[in-house]
C-alpha cells in the first residue's frame, strides 16, 4: 500500500521548500552524530543555509538525545521550536516526539516494531530500518550504526537531497576505509530505495539548491574561538575538562598540531597545560601572562567560581589574561549540556573587594573568532583579565557564518611593555606609575633587564609598586584602577545597531540571542510593530549604549537568564533609569527562538501598552 502523505497533510500542503525544520530523536552513544552531521553538511553543500542544534544529555550512553535541523533559504539561523518532521529513532520518547510534530507534519519511525499513531493531524512514515539493516549487515555494531545512515537515505528521498553531495561527503570521510564506505553507501541506498518506493517523494518540505553558502562556512563557536587564539598568537593555554568548554581546547590543540610545529624539530610553539583543576588553570594562565605570553583559560561557570580568587589577583596586580566562559545552565552543576547566559554578573565583578572586569559577548562563531583576537589585545593593553562570554549553543553547535577573514597586517597590541631601550630613557622604573594619565602603567617582563625588576603582589601596594598599608597610597592606586576600567569602555568592540524604519521601540540584547532577535525584528516589522535593535558586545558599556536606550521607548532587554543580569549591568553602569528597561527572559536551557521574542514583546505590550 502506498501512503500519500501530501494529501493527509492539508496544513502544510503549501510549498515549504527550503523553509522547514526537522528533529532527529535517538539514543546517545549509538553513532547518530555523524549521520546528522552528514545531513547538515549535504544541505549546506546544496547552497542552502542550515542550522543544527544538538540537545544531548549529560551522560555518555543510553539516554535520549535530539538533533534539530532547520533549513532556511532566508538564512535565519536561530532555533525554531516548530518541527515539520521528526525522525523518531528512540521508542522511549515516541509519545513526546509525536507531540512535538506541528499539525500536518510527519513522524518517521522504525516500523520493524509497528506502532499505533495517536494523532490525526500527523502522518506516520514507517520504515523498517532495523529489519533492513539486519538483513543487510552481519556485525551487531554495524547493524546499529548503519540504521543511522539508513534514515539519512530515507530523508534524502523525502527531502530531495542531493545524493551526489552526500556521496562526496562519504567518500571524503571514509575514502581510506573502503569497507566502511561501502556499508555506508549500501545503507544510504537501502533507505532511499524504501522511501522512494513507499512514499510520495519529495514531501512539500524539501530542499532545493541555492547559492547562498558559497562564501560561508559551517562551524561551531569553540572551534572559531580556538582559531582566534591561534591567530592572536596565544602560546599558553591552561584548562581543565568541562562541558561545554572542552572542545575549545581540543580544537586549539588540533590547530597547533598543524600550525605550531617548529619545522626541523617538529616541536611545539605552544604549551597547552591540562591542569588539575580550574584554580590551577587560572594560575597557569596568569603566570604565563605575567611572564609575557598571551595566555588563556577556557572554562564554564563552575570554573569561573573556582577562579574567583585568582581573578582578583590579576585585576589588582594588573596581569593580562583571557578567560573564556562558555556558559551552561547554572547554578551549581546545573544542566551541563544546556545553554544559558547566567554568568554575566559573576564575571563582571568576580572576586572579593572592589573589582570590575572587561567582558566581550560574541553572538555567533564568526564573532568568537574576531572577539577572541580582540580579547588578547585588550588584556595586554589594559593589563587586566578579559572574559569572553560565549555559551553552549554558540560554542558547541554548528552555525552557518561568513568565511573568516584575516588581515596579514595585523600585529598584536602588547600594550605598554618596556624593554632595555625604554629603560635607558628612564631614571628609575616604577611599576604602577601612571605617567600619561590614561590609568595604564608600563610593565616589564621577567628576564629582560635588571632595571625592570619589580615585585608583583596582590597585597596593598603604592604607585611605586612597594608594599603599603597606608590609606592615601592604597586609595591612589585603587582610584587609578577604576579610571583604567572606565577608559576601557571606549576601546571595546562597539555595539551593533540594526534599525527599522519608523521604530520607537528598542531592544537591547547580547551574544547568542542575536539570531532569534534579528528574525523576530523582521517578523514584527512585517506586522507593523517595528523595533530598533542594539546588541552590546562589550562591558563596561560604551556611551552609545546609554544613548540608544535614551532614544527609545519602550526598551526591552532580552537575555537568557532568570534574573535579568544584563539589565542589572545596564542599571548599574549606565545612567538610564532601571524603570525604562523591561525584561524579556528565556532561561530553560534551550536557545532563544523567534517565538520567545515575538510572543514575549507582544504580550508585554498588551499588559502595559507603551
Amino acid at each position: 500500500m502506498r501512503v500519500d502523505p501530501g494529501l493527509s497533510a492539508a496544513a502544510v500542503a503549501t510549498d515549504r521548500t527550503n523553509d522547514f525544520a526537522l528533529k532527529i530523536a535517538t539514543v546517545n552513544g549509538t553513532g547518530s552524530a555523524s549521520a546528522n552531521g552528514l545531513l547538515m553538511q549535504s544541505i549546506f553543500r546544496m547552497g542552502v543555509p542550515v542550522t543544527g542544534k544538538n540537545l544531548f544529555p549529560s551522560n555518555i550512553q543510553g539516554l535520549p538525545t535530539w538533533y534539530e535541523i532547520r533549513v532556511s533559504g532566508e538564512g535565519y539561523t536561530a532555533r525554531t521550536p516548530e518541527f515539520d518532521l521528526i525522525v523518531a529513532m528512540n521508542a522511549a520518547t515516541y509519545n513526546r516526539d509525536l507531540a512535538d510534530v506541528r499539525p500536518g507534519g510527519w513522524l518517521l519511525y522504525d516500523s520493524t516494531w509497528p506502532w499505533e499513531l495517536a494523532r490525526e493531524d500527523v502522518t506516520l512514515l514507517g520504515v523498517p530500518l532495523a529489519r533492513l539493516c539486519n538483513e543487510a549487515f552481519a556485525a551487531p555494531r554495524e547493524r546499529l550504526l548503519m540504521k543511522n545512515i539508513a534514515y539519512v537515505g530515507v530523508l534524502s528521498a523525502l527531502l530531495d537531497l542531493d545524493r551526489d553531495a552526500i556521496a562526496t561527503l562519504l567518500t571524503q570521510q571514509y575514502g581510506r576505509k573502503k569497507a566502511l564506505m561501502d556499508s555506508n553507501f549500501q545503507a544510504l541506498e537501502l533507505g532511499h530505495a524504501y522511501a522512494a518506493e513507499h512514499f510520495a517523494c519529495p514531501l512539500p518540505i524539501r530542499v532545493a539548491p541555492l547559492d547562498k553558502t558559497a562564501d560561508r562556512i559551517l562551524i561551531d563557536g569553540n572551534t572559531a574561538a580556538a582559531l582566534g587564539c591561534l591567530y592572536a598568537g596565544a602560546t599558553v593555554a591552561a584548562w581543565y575538562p568541562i562541558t561545554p568548554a572542552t572542545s575549545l581546547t581540543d580544537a586549539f590543540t588540533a590547530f597547533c598540531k598543524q600550525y605550531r610545529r617548529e619545522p626541523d624539530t617538529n616541536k611545539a610553539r605552544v604549551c597547552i597545560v591540562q591542569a588539575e583543576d580550574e584554580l590551577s588553570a587560572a594560575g597557569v594562565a596568569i603566570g604565563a601572562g605575567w611572564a609575557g605570553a598571551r595566555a588563556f583559560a577556557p572554562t564554564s561557570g563552575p570554573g569561573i567560581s573556582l577562579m574567583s580568587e585568582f581573578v582578583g589577583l590579576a585585576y589588582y596586580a594588573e596581569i593580562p589574561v583571557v578567560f573564556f566562559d562558555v556558559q551552561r545552565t547554572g547554578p551549581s552543576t546545573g544542566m551541563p549540556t544546556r545553554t544559558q547566559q547566567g554568568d554575566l554578573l559573576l564575571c563582571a565583578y568576580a572576586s572579593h573587594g572592589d573589582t570590575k572586569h572587561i567582558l566581550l559577548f560574541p553572538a555567533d562563531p564568526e564573532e568568537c573568532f574576531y572577539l577572541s583576537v580582540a580579547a588578547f589585545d585588550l588584556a595586554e593593553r589594559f593589563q587586566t583579565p578579559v572574559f569572553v562570554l560565549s555559551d553552549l549553543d554558540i560554542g558547541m553547535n554548528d552555525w552557518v557564518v561568513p568565511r573568516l577573514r584575516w588581515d596579514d597586517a595585523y600585529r598584536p597590541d602588547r600594550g605598554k611593555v618596556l624593554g632595555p631601550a625604554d629603560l635607558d630613557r628612564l631614571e628609575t622604573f616604577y611599576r604602577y606609575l601612571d605617567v600619561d594619565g590614561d590609568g595604564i602603567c608600563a610593565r616589564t617582563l621577567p628576564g629582560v633587564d635588571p632595571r625592570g625588576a619589580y615585585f608583583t603582589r596582590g597585597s596593598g601596594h603604592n604607585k611605586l609598586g612597594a608594599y603599603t598599608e597606608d590609606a592615601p597610597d592604597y586609595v591612589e592606586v585603587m582610584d587609578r584602577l577604576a579610571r583604567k576600567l572606565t577608559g576601557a569602555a571606549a576601546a571595546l568592540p562597539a555595539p551593533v545597531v540594526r534599525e527599522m524604519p519608523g521604530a520607537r521601540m528598542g531592544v537591547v540584547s547580547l551574544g547568542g540571542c542575536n539570531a532569534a532577535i534579528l528574525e523576530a525584528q523582521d517578523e514584527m516589522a512585517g506586522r507593523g510593530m517595528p523595533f530598533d535593535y542594539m546588541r552590546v558586545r562589550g562591558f563596561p558599556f560604551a556611551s552609545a549604549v546609554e544613548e540608544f536606550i535614551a532614544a527609545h521607548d519602550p526598551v526591552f532587554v532580552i537575555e537568557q537568564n532568570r534574573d535579568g543580569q544584563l539589565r542589572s549591568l545596564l542599571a548599574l553602569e549606565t545612567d538610564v533609569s532601571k524603570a525604562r528597561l523591561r525584561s524579556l527572559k528565556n532561561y530553560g536551557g534551550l536557545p532563544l527562538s523567534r517565538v520567545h521574542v515575538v510572543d514575549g514583546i507582544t504580550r508585554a505590550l498588551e499588559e502595559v501598552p507603551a
Partner: protein
Amino acid sequence: MSFIAKPKVRHPGLPTNALGLTRRDYEGSMSTLCAGCGHDSITAALIRTFFELDLPPHRIAKMSGIGCSSKTPTYFVKEAHGFNSVHGRMPSVASGAIAANRGLVYVGISGDGDSLSIGLGQFCHGIRRNIDMLYVLENNGVYGLTKGQFSASADIGSKSKRGEPNLQGPIDPVPLALAVGATFVARSFSGDKEQLVPILKAGIAHRGFAFVDVISPCVTFNDHEGSTKSYAYTRERNLEVVQTDFVPLRAAITAEYEQGAVTAVTMHDGSVVRLRKVAEDYDPSDREAVLAYLRERQEVGEVATGLLYLDEAGHDFHDMSGTVDTPLVDLPYEQLCPGAAALEELQERFR
C-alpha cells in the same frame, strides 16, 4: 645582556663572582620577619647560592604564595622579578611562567601551610608536572603569619604555645613528594647553611622539580619546649645521611668520579653533584629504600637530612610537552600566526 658584562664595582672591598657581582648584588630589601626567624637564614643561604653560581640576577624569577615564608622573596635578589601570588597556588603560577619562558632560573618559596594545607593539591601536581624549578618549603609546622595555628606538618604530640598537643598525624612532605614521583628530594635545616647551600645549588642544576624541605623554626610561635620544629629539637635530632657537594660546570672536568663512598651524579647542565653517604649503604636512587630508611630513623626520633633522593633521568615538563627550546615569549609573532592564506585554505574543512 651587555649590562651584565661590565662588572659593577660599587662595593670595592667585597669579593666578586664571575659576573663581577658582589654578594650584596644578590640581596633584597630588609627583612621584616621576627628576629631569629629560620626563614631569614634560608634567605641568606639562597643569596650565597645565587652569588656562588654566578647567576645574572635578572635571569632569576622568584615565586611564592602567602605567608611569612612567602614574603622572603622580597629579601633577596632585588634585581630579579618576583611574584607573591595567592595562598597555596604558587605552583600553578610558576607552571605558567615556566611554560611561557623556560629560559629563567625559577625559585619558589613556600611554607608548610602554603604547600601542605591549602596548597597540597597544587604542590603534588607541580611535582607530577615536573616543572623545572627549585622549590623550597620553609617548614615550621605552624601558620606563622596568622599567629601560630598548627599546620598539616605539625607532628603528633607537638605542643602549641598554649600547650595544647597536636593530635592529627603530620603530612611529611618528603614521603609525599616521593609518593607522587618527585625526581629531586632533599631535607635540610635552616640553621645548617653548610649543608643547605650545596643542596640548593644541586636543586638549581637539576632539570625538573627540585624539592627542598627546610626545617625552619618559627621563633615566635613554634620554638618552645615541646615543639618538634624548634631549633633545639631539630639540632639534636638532625641526622645527615647524605652529604652533598656541588661542583659547578666550570670545575666539573677536574671532578673525579666514584671514589669510596662518593657517588657523582652529572646534572643536565653538565655540573656534577657528589653525594657522600654518611649513613653507609644508603642508596639515594632507590625510592622505597629511602622511604623505609626515613621512617626507620623517624621511629627512633631522628630527622634524616641531605639530598635524600635524586633521579636525573626524569623528563621535565617541557620534555613531556614537546615544547620548542626557544622560550615561547621569544618567538616572533610571524612564527605564531598562520596568516590569511592558511585561514582561507583551512576553512575548506568547514564546508
